[in-house]
């Protein structure tokens, strides 16, 4: 031991006992050990993860739904273009218990999408005639669909759509509004066709506030939306349009789907120039048929009344008013009025006249003249027309069905009528209908027949018959005389003829003896054949006679 320390050595050196013993202070190490790297590392990792989490933490948004169908916190995702952009963190009822508040954590990367007009809806499996969607949700459960908005204003609270939109907001195209009297079969999802091409869908349909019509909102996808111009007409393409006309029997339908669930088609009427593209949300009228749509809307309407003094049987509301075969209006009301003084019954028929269909054109220049605009101008025109013999007439459209229509034409020979300009609506004078005319002419024929002197005709007839009788008697006497004188002479002539023929036969046939012989031989053969037939018949009945001979009874 090189160094002696401790109590033993101290005890040995008794001579230095008085000196104080130095104490050993254990050396304290103040140096920081390497082991502290571990907690520092752990802290760094933990803080790193925490920072990453905090940084990647997107906003929490609130969506209010009517009902939370299949939404579960922690399980339901918010998806945009089928990419998860968030997750539902809580589902709770609103304070008044009428709605559901869904809280969702949105990924930081998608935080920029949370703008004011962003849309949320619940995606559920949907099966309709036009297609099947959201089948994936059968396995994974419903999710919240998201549609990006165009606003730049950030928002954290949203109101979810009640129904999954037919057209997702990011789809390009434009919306238009169609106005119709009834919804028909144009429910949400009904296809919209352009030249039989599927270009859009009905996205909403609602009753107008006044309840007098229906507004159908449609979406037309880009690039087809450019074909919706200001003069485009929309019509109901559902069902089948069967028509029978001069060119035959025609069946028209847009597609089988349209036949089943209905459809809307649009097109600009022929002749209409390529107008400017319609604005989004422009309002159009929805026509019942393509024909009606192509005819174009009748913006200008005038009302007139026609007073008929005859039966209006066969005339119905909606019956056409035609001018020389061109439809220029329709019947809107048929009534019966009666004057208590004169006891005259009349049938006033209200008509709607579309002046646009009857355009005034100058024959010299070919220019279309503007229709009268003011009431005075109209009155003036009506006065002029009536003066020239413009009259309405009830005509039979079809002899089979007895349907009538109102025909208007110029009757130059019609009696002059003073137009009562004070009446509203204006009364267009009428002339009797075709049948009425026929009736009157038949009546006049009958009247003439009435005047015929039948007694005189009778006496004349008797006289004529007596003369005829005498003539017949004379003829009879003539025939008798012929019989007595001519027939014996004829007989004699015939006899002479026969003799002549006989002598001719004798002279013309030199081998008459041979012929007679041959005839004799043939007669013999015929007889022989007859006896053989008798024998064979007998043998057939009695074959045993060949051996035994004829039976005794037979020989008798």
């Amino acid at each position: 031991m090189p160094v002696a320390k401790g109590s033993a050595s101290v005890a040995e050196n008794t001579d230095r006992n008085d000196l104080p013993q130095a104490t050993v202070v254990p050396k304290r190490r103040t140096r920081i050990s390497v082991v502290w790297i571990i907690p520092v590392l752990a802290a760094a990792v933990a803080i790193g993860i925490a920072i990453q989490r905090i940084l990647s933490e997107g906003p929490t948004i609130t969506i209010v739904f009517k009902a939370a169908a299949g939404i579960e916190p922690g399980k339901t995702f918010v998806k945009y273009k089928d990419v998860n952009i968030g997750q539902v963190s809580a589902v709770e009822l609103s304070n008044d218990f009428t709605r559901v508040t869904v809280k969702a954590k949105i990924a930081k990367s998608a935080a920029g999408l949370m703008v004011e007009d962003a849309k949320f809806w619940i995606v559920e499996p949907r099966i309709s005639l036009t297609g099947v969607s959201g089948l994936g949700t059968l396995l994974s459960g419903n999710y919240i669909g998201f549609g990006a908005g165009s606003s730049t204003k950030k928002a954290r609270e949203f109101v979810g759509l009640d129904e999954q939109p037919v057209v997702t907001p990011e789809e390009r195209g434009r919306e238009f509004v169609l106005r119709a009297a009834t919804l028909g079969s144009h429910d949400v999802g009904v296809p919209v066709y352009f030249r039989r091409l599927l270009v859009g869908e009905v996205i909403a349909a609602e009753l107008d506030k006044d309840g007098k019509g229906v507004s159908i909102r449609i979406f037309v996808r880009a690039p087809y939306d450019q074909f919706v111009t200001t003069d485009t007409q929309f019509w109901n393409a559902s069902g089948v349009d069967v028509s029978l006309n001069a060119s035959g029997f025609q069946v028209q339908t847009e597609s089988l789907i349209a036949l089943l669930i209905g459809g809307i088609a649009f097109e600009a009427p022929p002749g209409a120039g390529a107008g400017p593209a319609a604005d989004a949300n422009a309002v159009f009228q929805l026509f019942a048929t393509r024909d009606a749509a192509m005819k174009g809307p009748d913006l200008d309407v005038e009302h007139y009344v026609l007073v008929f003094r005859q039966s209006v049987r066969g005339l119905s509301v909606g019956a056409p008013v035609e001018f020389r075969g061109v439809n220029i209006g329709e019947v809107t009301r048929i009534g019966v009025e009666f004057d208590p003084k004169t006891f005259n019954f009349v049938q006033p028929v209200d008509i709607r006249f579309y002046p646009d269909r009857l355009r005034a054109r100058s024959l010299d220049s070919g220019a279309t003249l503007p229709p009268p605009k003011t009431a005075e101008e109209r009155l003036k025109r009506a006065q002029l027309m009536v003066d020239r013999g413009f009259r309405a007439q009830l005509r039979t459209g079809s002899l089979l069905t007895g349907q009538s229509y109102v025909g208007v034409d110029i009757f130059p020979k019609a009696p002059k009528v003073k137009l009562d300009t004070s009446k509203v609506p204006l009364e267009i004078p009428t002339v009797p209908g075709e049948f009425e005319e026929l009736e009157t002419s038949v009546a006049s024929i009958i009247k003439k027949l009435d005047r015929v002197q039948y007694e005189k005709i009778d006496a004349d007839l008797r006289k004529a018959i007596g003369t005829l009788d005498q003539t017949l008697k004379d003829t009879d006497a003539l025939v008798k005389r012929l019989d007595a004188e001519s027939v014996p002479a004829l007989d004699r002539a015939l006899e002479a003829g026969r003799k002549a023929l006989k002598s001719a036969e004798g002279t013309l046939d030199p081998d008459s003896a041979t012929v007679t012989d041959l005839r004799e031989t043939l007669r013999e053969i015929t007889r022989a054949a007859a006896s053989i037939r008798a024998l064979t018949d007998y043998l057939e009945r009695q074959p045993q006679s060949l051996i035994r001979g004829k039976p005794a009874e037979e020989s008798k």
Partner: protein
Amino acid sequence: MTAAALTAARAGLVSCETCKLLSRPVHPDHAGHCPRCGAELESRRANSIQYTWALVIAAAICYIPANLLPVMNTTAFGSTEPDTIMGGVVFLYTSGSWPLALIVLIASVMVPLAKLIALGYLLITVQRGVPGGGRERTRLYRMVEFIGRWSMLDVFVDTFTVALVQLQPLMSVAPGPGVLFFAAVVVLTMIAAETFDPRLIWDAGSQGERQRG
């Protein structure tokens, strides 16, 4: 304290930690190696307290993400659902099997926390030289050391589930980041318990005695 009067340290001796042979050190500062088994002799483990503190703090830090991050990601029918330890406890409890919930709660949440607290308590008392209670503190230390090897329950369950539940299109389970931190907590506390020198508990007692004497 029943004044176990003389300790090896005071007697200037050192005992081998491996074979427990009592021998005289070469030098008080450099004890040398055990003459019997050849293990390095140390009167007291060097930097024991500092090492233990570092590990305990590291474990405490890891304990937070271990509980906050998901330990398991279950994917069923296309939707992924993360599960944390506490989430699992709550799920078990709400689904009616509260005994299981209790076991998971104790094994996975309370035991690691208890270990951290126990080690912290031991370190503080040793550093402050608190006399007395040495026997109880030693028992506490032994318990911490014993429990250590059973604390991986959660990690085992997790690894087994991940390995077994792989029905790819329908359902699959993937480990979450939380399980790494949880394993780190368990390992760090085990090492911390190892680096802690229980002899220091008695040093405090004898020091106090010496101060008194």
